[in-house]
């Protein structure tokens, strides 16, 4: 269809191929599980990252992973986070 720029999802998958190399030298099941978590965190917020449309791929990935981790630290917020 003549698309000229990769979608965020495509760019993310492309970048994550590089991460496989990183994972090969992780030595414990705990580390590998943690790394899987980072990976799924990066994928989880693709809709939000696409919406932002930032030219900085890493910014979007970091925001996604951090949001995912933060949500896991406090899975049940004491009060519902208000929308701006």
């Amino acid at each position: 269809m003549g698309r000229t720029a990769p979608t965020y999802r495509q760019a993310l998958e492309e970048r994550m191929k590089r991460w496989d190399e990183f994972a090969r030298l992780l030595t414990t099941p705990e580390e590998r599980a943690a790394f899987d978590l980072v990976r799924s965190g990066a994928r989880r917020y693709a809709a939000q990252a696409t919406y932002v449309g930032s030219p900085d791929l890493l910014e979007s990935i970091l925001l996604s992973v951090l949001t995912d981790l933060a949500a896991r630290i406090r899975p049940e917020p004491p009060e519902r986070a208000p929308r701006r």
Partner: protein
Amino acid sequence: MSGPTSTPDGWLLDITESEDGRSIVLWVKSRRTGRVRRTAVEYRPPFLVTGPRPALVDLARSLAGRPTVAAVALGTGRPSLYDRRPRPVLTVTPMRNPERRALAREVDAAGQYETFSLYDVDLLPPQLYHLGHALYPFAPVVGTGAALTATEPPEAIEYLPPPLRLARLEVRLAGMRRGRLPPPDGRIGSVRLGEVTLEGPEADLLRALVDELARSDPDILLTQGGDSFDLPWLYRRAAACGLPPSEFSLGRERVGFRASRPARSFESYGRVLHRSASYPIPGRFHIDRENSFLYDDAEIAGLVDAARLSRLSLATVVRQSPGTCFTAMEMAHALALGAHVPWKKNRPEGFRRADRLVAADRGGVIFLPPVGVHDHVDEFDFASLYPHIMVRKNLSAETLECRCCPQSPIRAPGLGYRSCTRRVGLIPRTLAPLLARRLAYKAALKRPGLPAEEASRLRRRVKMLKWILVTAFGYQGYRNARFGRIECHEAINAYARELIAALLPEAERAGYAVLHGIVDSLWLRPVDLGRPADPEGFAARMSERFDLPLGYEGRYRWIVFLPAVTHGLGVPNRYYGLYEHGEFKLRGIGGRRHDTPGLVRRFESEVLTLFRTARDAAGVRALLPRALSRADLIAARVAAGDWPVEELLVSHRVGQAPEAFGTFTDSVAALRQLAEAGARREAGEVVRFVLLDRESRSFRRRVAVAEQLTGDERYDVGAYLDLLARDAETLLAPLGIDRATLLERWGGPLAPTRAPYRSPERATQSELANGPGPSGPFSPA
């Protein structure tokens, strides 16, 4: 709504090109007798050329007096939609209609492919005749010949369609079952036309067919595979029997037999497809259900509607994509505006900074749904969201970033593209009546006491329109679209994303949690199940708030969002669920795909029948053991080797030319078998086969093609158990089922070839929690 202004004498069925190349033929069906009359009218439409005046003067001089040119005239006009003021225009009339394109190419070449812009080159003379004479296919008409007049406009919503006579046509070769590979000199043993079956010596049979056609005089011949088999075979055998075109023809005109379009392979939405050659039968229509994208969904009522609106012959509509219809509708509106249709789109995408491109070139919002079984889920969809946005925001190539409205308040969110506020664009002009039409049909469907036949006709028109509306958006970003522009495509997406973003807080305010969303649909679940949600009210409020129709699709008793095999997170478009009103919605599961063998469909339908009884998510989970025992029963029969081979046929669309394959796959084996039997298949065609021995390196032993099945083949048990296990995993993964465990359970001889899939999601959660996974393979979660 406009009713007929006067009683028509009949209907214009079709306009075809005449053999002499200088006229068109009008086919009119009489209302009184039902007979179809042929009238030829002289008609040689010109094409237009623009460019610098001196160059046009030179061109006119060089064209005048050529044997291929009937007339040349220099004048002024505004052929392009972008033209603000008149400019010099050369009108060129070819001597013969079939030479239009060749002559246009010469003109283009004479201008080094850049001096001249050409218009109206590739519109067909019948299409131009329609547009120039306020006619359209299936128009009720009065008068004859050049004075033929439609009694109502094509846009009329309530109209009386012509009574079309349909007849099924089916050719059988002597001593052969259908679906087998025909020998090159196979004789025709019998022909079925409508209710009549003709048999006898071949030449007599063919003459009898011509007589029967004249007697029953059908308007439409309906076949299954007629473009690739029945029609060419009839004409080939007629020639072999020494019958000239004057004695054998399926049309209402005795013309020689030749393909109007050769067979070809092409790519569409990432898939390689193949279209057979088509053979015109002037005066009648031939609909090949295998060669028609639109027939299945729209059937005749929808096709007639599309032909009326697009001014394309039914013969064209039936073989083309909805996009071709939409483009033709745009052309009709452009000509109505006094503009003409550019031959080659001369509007390259402007160069842009890469970061602007990243910001602009984005699709709609697509969430990842939470994998698992859910209940109390309400689904909301915007009806025809993109077309509505194009109309509301006046998005069209020539109205976007126009020079006349630098202060326009209509700006695409985040991108800033302005829309014109002074004139309505071509796309909104084309779309608005289609949207209104669809709404009118839908409203008419709700009328009490509507006869079943009328209701089914309306439903088909609605479906047809839906397809055309869907394409309207895609064609904005398509490089060959005549009136498309990539920035329109981007702007539409930007508006749609903004809409979903604005809708989310509204949904939360209404007491919903957002479960899933894709572009124009939302799946919401009440946060407090004790408080009854008001979905209808929410939909109505939002429709009003955003001035776009948000519809409440219904509540699910349960819905299962499925994971990706690779990473275990949800896949946006793979789910199945049961509405409270009793209908299933299935997306992306095996049974909906074309390549799925009957075995897999059988398993899926058994699981779904079972799950139909579940009232909620817990009910689905409770049924898992029973679903598994169904799978076990099927697996046992597959393993015993007595599953009927017809239900094991795997279909595969060939993605490239047979020679281009580098590795030996199932499809390659099938292609070689077919080639050996003299039946070569091209890229885009489908091969169907049963797997005999997946490990075999011999193309004869690896598969058996459908065309040569005997019924007592010994299939590859391991391969089919694996297929079954894969499908069971697709459906049941959210309930804790995986393929490797299933194969182990069934004692399949084939070990999984790839590592068993493990959702990082599930794995990490359970590992971090230091406990067992949330669901063991066979313990109901």
